[in-house]
Structure formats: C-alpha cells, structure tokens
C-alpha cells in the first residue's frame, strides 16, 4: 500500500478543469429562480440523490461525479445521506406510482430553501415509460423542479455543468 500511496503523491493529478456552465441550464434557472427570489445558500450545496424509478443508468453517472476526473467535492458540492441535510434533491427516473409517495415525503423532509434538479430524459416527462399504468410521469408531476439536465443518461460532465449553473444561478438570483 505504501508504494501505491507514494506513487499517488508524485503522479500528476487526474482531475480535469471544470466544464463551462451550461447556458441552457442558466436560462432555465434564471426563469425558475427569478419567480421566487430564493436566498443563495453560499458556495456550498448538499445534494440528496433520489431514484424515483430510474433504470439505474443515471445513478452510475452521478456516482462517477465522485471519481478523480470530476471530483465534485472541489466545487463545494457533496452528496449527503439524509434529505434533512440537503439543499438540493437530485431526482432521477420516471416517477413510478410505487415511488410517488416516497419522493413526496423525501421532498417534504428537506428543509427550505431547497432546489430540485431532475436528471435524465425520463425525469423530464417519463421518457419511453410515459403512459405506462405504473408510471406517474416526469418529476415535476410530483414536486416542483428547478433545473432539468437531459440525457440518457447525461454524462458526468453535463451533470456537473448543470450543477455549476445552479451554484452560479443561485447567487445571481439572491
């Protein structure tokens, strides 16, 4: 283990420069945040991830945000274990009928001010699962959504760009 640790000290870092903030996301945020000028939460956001019915593809890419290439922690963004600790709910999937109540209760358990980021094509309108007897539809059918990051699944760099827009948009709106 010592050799591996020493190597890590002398090899150059893998972490990449932050992506440019997603412009489409900025515009979307300017609209949603503008309606109700929410107080900025400073430079740090705690994120609670909720899978409301996804295929797990989005979760894989959200996980990847923690790896050395994207290192989401350096932006003050971190994933927390409880909605009670969260500023942001990051919700994936078409919301299934079996998960609707759990999502609603998770949202209610998150202290205000709070933001909701819907990740993935299904989270917008149910995607290819829309119309199923077991699916409610997009996340906004159940809780208000501030930002949507499209993709199936969106690659980590897109999710990161969206989250950075949220950080900057949050400041702009306050």
């Amino acid at each position, binding site marked *: 283990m010592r050799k591996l640790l020493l190597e890590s000290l002398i090899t150059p870092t893998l972490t990449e420069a932050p992506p440019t903030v997603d412009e489409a996301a900025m515009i979307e945020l300017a609209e949603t945040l503008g309606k109700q000028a929410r107080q900025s939460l400073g430079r740090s956001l705690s994120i609670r991830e909720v899978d409301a019915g996804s295929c797990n593809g989005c979760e894989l890419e959200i*996980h990847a945000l923690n790896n050395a290439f994207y290192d989401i922690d350096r932006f003050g963004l971190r994933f927390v274990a409880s909605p009670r600790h969260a500023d942001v709910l990051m919700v994936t999937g078409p919301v299934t009928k079996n998960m609707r109540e759990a999502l609603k209760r998770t949202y209610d358990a998150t202290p205000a001010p709070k933001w909701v980021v819907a990740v993935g094509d299904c989270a917008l309108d149910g995607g290819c699962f829309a119309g199923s007897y077991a699916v409610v539809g997009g996340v906004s059918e159940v809780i208000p959504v501030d930002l949507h990051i499209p993709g199936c699944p969106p690659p980590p760099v897109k999710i990161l760009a969206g989250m950075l827009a949220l950080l900057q948009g949050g400041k702009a709106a306050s």
Partner: protein
Amino acid sequence: MTVFWTSILKPTEAGTEHAWQSHEVDEAEWTQVAEALGGETAVLLGLWGDTGTIRMAVLDEATNEIAVLALACPNGSYPSVGQHHAAAQRLERAARDLFGLTPRDCPDERPWLDHGRWSLRRPLGAATPDAGEGDAYGFLPVEGEGLHQVPVGPVHAGIIEPGHFRFTGNGEAVVRLEERLGYVHKGIEGLMAGKNLGEAARLAARTSGDSTVAYGLALARAAEDALGADVPERAVWQRALMAELERLANHLGDFGAVCNDAAFALMHAHCGVLRERVLRASDAAFGHRLMRDLIVPGGVAVDLSGEGIAAIQSMLAEIRQRFPALVNLYDNTASLQDRTVSTGRLDPALAKRFGAGGFVGRASGRSFDARHALGYPPYDRLSFEVPVLDAGDVDARVWIRIREAEQSLSLIEQILSKMPQGAVFTELKAVSSPCDGLALVEGFRGDILVWLRIGSDGLIERCHMRDPSWFQWPLLEAVIEGNIIADFPLCNKSFNCSYSGHDL
C-alpha cells in the same frame, strides 16, 4: 444423455428451428417438473404469465438444454411451483399481480410488485379499476424476547436504487431480513406489447442501466431466434466486445465499491479511475459511455473504427499495468480481509437450489455461465475460463469479480484480433405467422432470460425478461442471517442485485 424432463413429458414432435424445446403441458406434467426442480440437474430459469397461460423455462444442467413449458389456465389458476421450489414463489406472486393467474397452494399469497398504487389491478390480464390508495403489506411476523426491527428504505442513504429492507435484530445480530421490492416497477412488459422490434430494444436497454448491453443483446438474440435470422459476423463480434467492456466496467466498479463499504476508500478511488477509463474508451469506440441502444435486432448500430480500437487498446494497456497492484493490495490488507472473509456466506447447496447465476453462484460453487454453457457466438471461438470458488463469502464474490475482469481483458484482446471485416447490420425479414424466440445471455450479474412472441404484424405480442437478481435477492436474505447489521452494506454490495431489472 437425456434431459430430466424426458421421463415426465410426452414426446413431442419438436421443431428443429430453435435451440430450445417448447412443450404444451397438462397440470400433472407441470407439477412433476415442479417437483423435479432443484434436483441434481434441474434448474428453474423463469416463470411468467401470459393471457390465459402460465409459462416456465427450465434448464437441464447436465446437457445445458432449455425447455419452455406452457400450461393453459382456463380457470385462471394453476398448481403452484413455489410450493415445491421456493425460487419460484416471487415469480408466481409477480405473475399473479400482473395477469391475475393464481398459483394454487402457493405458500405465500401476498402481492409482490403490486403495492396497490396503480389504480388498476391485474394490469396485463383482466384489468379492473382500483382506488390506487396503496395496500398495507403484511411483513412476516417475528416473535421472541429482545427482538427489535429496523426498517430501511425505499429511499436509501446512498446513490442507489429504491427498495425496502426490514431487519429484525437481536442485539447486533440480524435474525431475519425481509425484502420488499417493486418500487421501481415501470410496467416494461406492458409497454412492450404492440411495439416494433426497434422500440422494444430501446425498452430492453432501459431495463437495468448497468446491464444495458446485456439486455440489448438478450432482446436482439431472442428476436433473431424467433425470426430465424442470421446476424453479420462482424456484428456478432462487436456485440461481444461491448458485453465484455460492460462486464469489465461493472466488475471494476463493484470491486472498489465493496472495499468502500468496508471503509477502504483508497481502492474505491483507484477502481473509480479504471472504471472511468473503460467508459471513456467505450465512448470513443461506440459513441456512448454505457453503450446504450447500440445493439439492435439485426446487428449493431455503429461500426467500430480504427480510432475506437486504438482507444480500447490504450485502455487495456493501462488496466493491465495498474490492476495487478490493486489486486495485491486487496490480498495483502489484513484489515480489509477481516471484513470480507467469512462475512455473508452463501451455502453452495442454496446457490444450486436457486440456480443463482453470476458471481453470486460462482462464488458458491455453481459454475454455470451462459457464455460457456451455451457457447453462443462468438464465445464458441474464444478461449476463456469460468472462475469458480466454494467459500461463498464476500471475499469469494470479490475474487470472482477480479478473475472475471482479468478474463474480460483477455477476451477483449482476442475479439480485437479476430474480428472479421464486413457489414454490421442486416434488415430482419418480415414474418407471416406468430413466432416465439428465446435467449439466455450472460450479463455481468448473471444470466438474463428473454422470451418473446412476435405477432404476424411484426410487433411484439408478449415479451418477458428475467433478471438474474430474481434468484439472488432471496439468497441475500439467507446470507445476512447471523451477521451484524453493520455488515449488511458489504453483503448487499457483494451481491449487487438489480432493483430495476427485477421490478421491471
């Protein structure tokens, strides 16, 4: 060698168009097959409903032959398989929820996927409207002094899928874990009906995100089996390339994640880098990090370019260079071994009885691997080993992943050197009469079964997909018994069952 059902079923004039047998059975034959399951060579591969019919797929492990039995249920009921073979119980509960087919004398009469929230009962059978306000679920009763319960989920503490676990503990030790799943049920099998093959492939690719290639492959192979179609050689090899890249990425991710659940974050960080390298190489080669929607019925959607091959080769070189040091680190870190060795032991007899596939089965002595057992192309022309261990603990499941990742590296190299040139897609011919198809494909988690029927209009009439997790989730309940609750994340991650693939 004869298959176990020879002595049970009436001889049928089975056609030779499929590699598997199809039998219409009566209740007596159905029950005799059910009684034989879990025996020396008889394995249940799946059980699913259809309009007025219940079907069961079985495997004979001595010959690796597959048969699909269909039993007509004119009265909406059939003799329960689950009363003889526990692995069938959740499948029967699911088939009742969806189609209203009742297993007579099933030991467990509770619903499984239906939480009472669909505003509809029996959505795929004789559907009736319902208030959709949710049903109370009767968890198994527990009695005894000093017992306490810990309910967990459906929303868990990490970035993972939703499901409910109810632990009953005596002090720190778990005396019972009961799972309740179905939260991510999206009604995929209902959506499949009436779809063309392209749309069906897109749904299959979204059944379980980490196995998107394996599901795409299983659906495509089942459709091609039904239509009697041959796929261009180059496409066959590229499909296997994608499947091995997916397996490699998942095994690397799991290796790190299991160690992370033992609080060994260093391994997680290093494995995360290697996994990212695989995903980036996949993106460079095929245009999508998870390679979603790239396997289509008839071939593959994109052709691998020279730059793609170069990207994969440089990824292989890096992993070949870095992976052995991580394996050594795992092997030589006593504090990590202390957590994984002897934790969450799965009895080989139980793995065999449930027909557990993937690393769960192979870490407990069950060597079945669809790539090897069925030898579907191009694996019949590739050389690889199927690692098997008997210890059955978390450590063994980690080692199976390590060995399989090494095998995948070798397979990818072989595929790149042997892949022929040529077309990668062929239009599938239209059909004039309804036809059935079946495929069993080895995903990273185990064997995925797809059975489908294509109507004379070329659209899907019925498609059933059985995730390997169906036969692994129940074993997790057995494995955790006697372990401490704090070791549950470790056991759970070492199984890494799919929620979405199971709930469908």
